[in-house]
């Protein structure tokens, strides 16, 4: 599992990446009440807005950690958006991405580096 500085994670197996947001991100947003998922089949570029998380106090964009094609979305979130809070790095995943450029992943952070990054920014992960 690798992280972005904008608090997304991606877990890649056989060129397919599962994408979600970090535990830190869900905690900062508070209770998630709605997840706007991308359309299956849509092509996204690394860093492009791919989903929106809406909590009781904010609506935040989720940026794709890599380029590729959306091949599946977590439809369970339509009924249970709170999974993003209770299991942000597990059942609360957002979408699956068929990667078009696996090389892009090298620029991402591992968990340790991501958490160190948070600490440097003055947050306790």
């Amino acid at each position, binding site marked *: 599992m690798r992280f972005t500085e904008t608090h997304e994670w991606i877990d890649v197996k056989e060129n397919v990446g599962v994408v979600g947001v970090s535990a830190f991100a869900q905690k900062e947003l508070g209770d998630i*009440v709605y997840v706007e998922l991308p*359309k299956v089949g849509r092509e996204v570029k690394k860093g492009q807005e791919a989903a929106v998380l*809406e*909590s*009781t*106090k*904010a*609506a935040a*964009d989720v940026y794709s950690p890599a380029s590729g094609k959306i091949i599946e979305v977590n439809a369970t979130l339509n009924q249970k958006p709170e999974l993003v809070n209770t299991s942000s790095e597990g059942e609360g995943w957002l979408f699956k991405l068929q990667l078009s450029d696996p090389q892009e992943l090298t620029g991402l952070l591992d968990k340790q580096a991501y958490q160190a990054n948070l600490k440097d920014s003055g947050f306790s992960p």
Partner: protein
Amino acid sequence: MDFISNQKAQVNAMLEAIGAGSIEELFASIPQNLKHRAPHRDDGLSESEGVILMEEIAAKNTFSSYESYLGAGAYEHYLPAVIGFICSKSEFLTAYTPYQPEASQGMLQATFEFQSAICALTGMDVSNASLYDGATACAEAMLMALRYQKERNKVVIASSLHPHYFSVVKQFLSSHGTLIERIPFDKDGSLDRAKAEALIDDQTSAVLLPYPSFFGVIDEIKQISAKAKACGSLMVVCANPLVYGLYASAEEIGADIAVGDIQPLGLPLQFGGPYCGYMACRQDLVRQMPGRIVGETIDAEGKRGFVLTLQAREQHIRREKATSNICTNQALAALASLVCMLWYGRQGLRELALTNYQRTAYLRHRLGQLPGVVLMGNAPFFNEFALSFGYSGAEAFEHFRHRGIEPGLDLGKYYPEFNGYLLVAVTETKTKGMLDRYIQVASELMVRK
């Protein structure tokens, strides 16, 4: 905070502190020709003289001495006295920022009831707390549809939509690079359905149709809705809200979003505003709907209460990504229309709409019998229709105005192909006697020919 102007001593103290000898010296660097000359001073008028002066000026406006058949988007209706009584209560009239989360429970409840009334009227699932006016409501509906389907960038709009509304929509979409296709109309003013269906494709984000059209025509929208649905496009219907008292609801004709100006229900003409837009939609579109929504809830003690809801997409939180950056809601105007709707009630609105239709039908039918008069066509109508007396607009206007009647709108100004046509609106404010006078004056005009 009191306003206390500077006294001479204070002015001098300040001048001394900055080292200027006088006010003139302080402003010496401003060229003489840019300086404001000393205002003319006199003793002014006494209160009673002032009233006389203003009454003289106001009397130059002879508007109210005419029997007016102008409509074209703004309609003269009788306003039940209860509307003014409720709206002038200071709790509503001077309520502090009725668009903020801390709005009073009374204001929130009134807005909630307004939303419920709009839903009942249009048949849609959910309504917002109102928008700026009918034209911006149309534009916001287009933006909403474009947000809903980000990969599409084309809208199809009836050419018989109010031309002012269209120009606002065009302005809103100009920075989106959206392709706007327009549905033509036939000679009788009704939409060309075959062309409409041909224009709607899988790139079409939304279809915007008027109900009734600028020419007063009730088009068959249902069939066009079916085509829109098949292409995955959203159907937006812009309606005079009173039409729903008589004709099928927005939901029944296949609308996904219902918009319009609420003015005919409870708002005076006021020389053009403030009016108030309404917008209602299907439940699954609610998160793309602009503006605020008041929801019903229970408080910590289990009591019924009202609260602004779904706010996370509004501009104070989402800034440039907000669903709209004009969240203006016309709270007081919406209240006026709510009081009007409640006063008439379900049955009363039906009767009011029917009266509008019947009086329009009477005038239209009788005028149509006069030799030389040409009706635009035989398409279904509501409370407005177009006809030609066979005279240039100016001649007909002179004849009618001379006899105290403003006969309608000069349609040629907006649609050159209908040069010489008048757009005539008839509401419940026109008695049979008035209508017969119109017919009499018209027949005199035709005899002159």
